[in-house]
């Protein structure tokens, strides 16, 4: 047993322990806190699996922003929790479900143990094509060139998700400002943090996007950091969330997918296929797409957490203008 195997075994035990806590905790708030810690431990697991880009995305999105979402929901749903516990399934049903889930887990474990050796890999094919894109980070190369259609569809699908969240407002509140991020009213610690941290956070976010071309990083990780800074400013009460009828904000939401589709369509003329890049201009075009996508994904992530428009009186000043 080498020391690396011991570290991996300890990590696995911690991750499984936290997963058990999330499943078995009495209060939803405790389970949500456990979920944030679980995401951070998974980040270390991803680093052990030699996937640093995925580790950054898991820390920023999977643990940070998802944790924020779940903590807010747990706080809002706390009054209705007591009624839930009376509706648990009976013990025999739970035993049966436990056996079936254990069988499914055993099946997946068998798949893991029977994976082919030597493992098939596309790493060599990616490495052969990577210099043509001008990038040095193979994951960014796959995201922007080999599986560019996946990234395009992913950035497009975020906008209907946001529209879905907005559509859950009440009739009177449509057109107003989102209401999930109620500002913290007392004390000065949070506004101080919201004044000191965002300059550094914005620098870190932009650096992550820029460095993603050659080193681990990329637009999703950078956009998550930028969105977190924006959310911090909103929660501290230093800025109000933009109203959902704001034209500039709506334009910023779609500028990323529009850039992507535009450059992809131009590729039909210039390089022969949708989303093909002409040889000499690959890197500048990819960077242009990344800048547009960073702006859009930052806006979408921040607004997904801000929630649907709320009927609070102070947020209804601008809602006369229906659109």
């Amino acid at each position, binding site marked *: 047993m080498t020391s690396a195997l011991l570290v991996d075994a300890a990590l696995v035990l911690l991750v499984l322990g936290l997963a058990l806590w999330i499943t078995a905790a009495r209060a939803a708030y405790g389970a949500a806190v456990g979920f944030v810690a679980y995401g951070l431990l998974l980040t270390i697991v991803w680093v052990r699996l030699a996937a640093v880009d995925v580790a950054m995305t898991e820390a920023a999105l*999977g643990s940070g922003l998802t944790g924020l979402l779940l903590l807010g929901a747990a706080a809002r749903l706390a009054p209705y929790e007591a009624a839930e516990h009376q509706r648990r399934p009976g013990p025999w049903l739970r035993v049966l*479900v436990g056996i079936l889930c254990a069988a499914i887990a055993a099946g997946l474990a068998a798949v893991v143990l029977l994976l082919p050796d030597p*493992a098939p890999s596309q790493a060599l094919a990616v490495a052969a094509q990577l210099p043509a894109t001008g990038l040095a980070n193979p994951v960014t190369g796959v995201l922007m060139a080999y599986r560019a259609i996946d990234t395009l569809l992913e950035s497009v699908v975020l906008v209907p998700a946001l529209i879905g969240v907005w559509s859950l407002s009440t009739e009177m509140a449509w057109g107003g400002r989102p209401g999930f991020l109620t500002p913290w009213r007392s004390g000065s610690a949070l506004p101080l943090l919201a004044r000191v941290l965002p300059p550094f956070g914005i620098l870190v976010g932009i650096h992550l996007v820029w460095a993603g071309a050659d080193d681990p990083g990329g637009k999703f990780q950078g956009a998550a950091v930028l969105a977190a800074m924006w959310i911090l400013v909103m929660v501290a009460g230093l800025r109000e969330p933009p109203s959902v009828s704001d034209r500039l904000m709506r334009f910023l939401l779609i500028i990323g997918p529009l850039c992507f589709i535009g450059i992809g369509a131009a590729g039909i003329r210039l390089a022969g296929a949708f989303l093909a890049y002409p040889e000499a201009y690959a890197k500048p075009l990819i960077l242009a797409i990344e800048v547009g996508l960073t702006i859009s994904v930052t806006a979408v992530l921040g607004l997904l957490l801000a929630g649907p428009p709320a009927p609070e009186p102070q947020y209804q000043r601008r809602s006369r203008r229906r659109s």
Partner: protein
Amino acid sequence: MSGTTLFGLCAATLVGLGLYGLICQPGALRKILAFNLIGSGVFLLFGVIAQRGGGVLALAGTGRDGDPVPQALVITGLVVAFAATAIAVTLLVRLAETSARGTLEGDEPPPQAPPDEPRP
């Protein structure tokens, strides 16, 4: 038994745990949490496959090795899973606001729902 296989078995256990939580937990927010557990288990399985496909690039030994295609798919999956969780959580909060309960069972009438705001 290498570290990678250990992580693969961990991923299988996470999927099983998440599935149990999804079926047996009565509250919808706990179900969403369990669903995220299943998702992270599946992503870990992708990560195991990606790590096993490494060792062939010039980056071998730098800790950034691995098959980049499954890694890129996992990054895409993480972002889309976050968006789906956001919609699910917002739906749940809206359900709780209008019908004063946090579960999805519809077999009994919900407690007195607060009247919605009057239309103009």
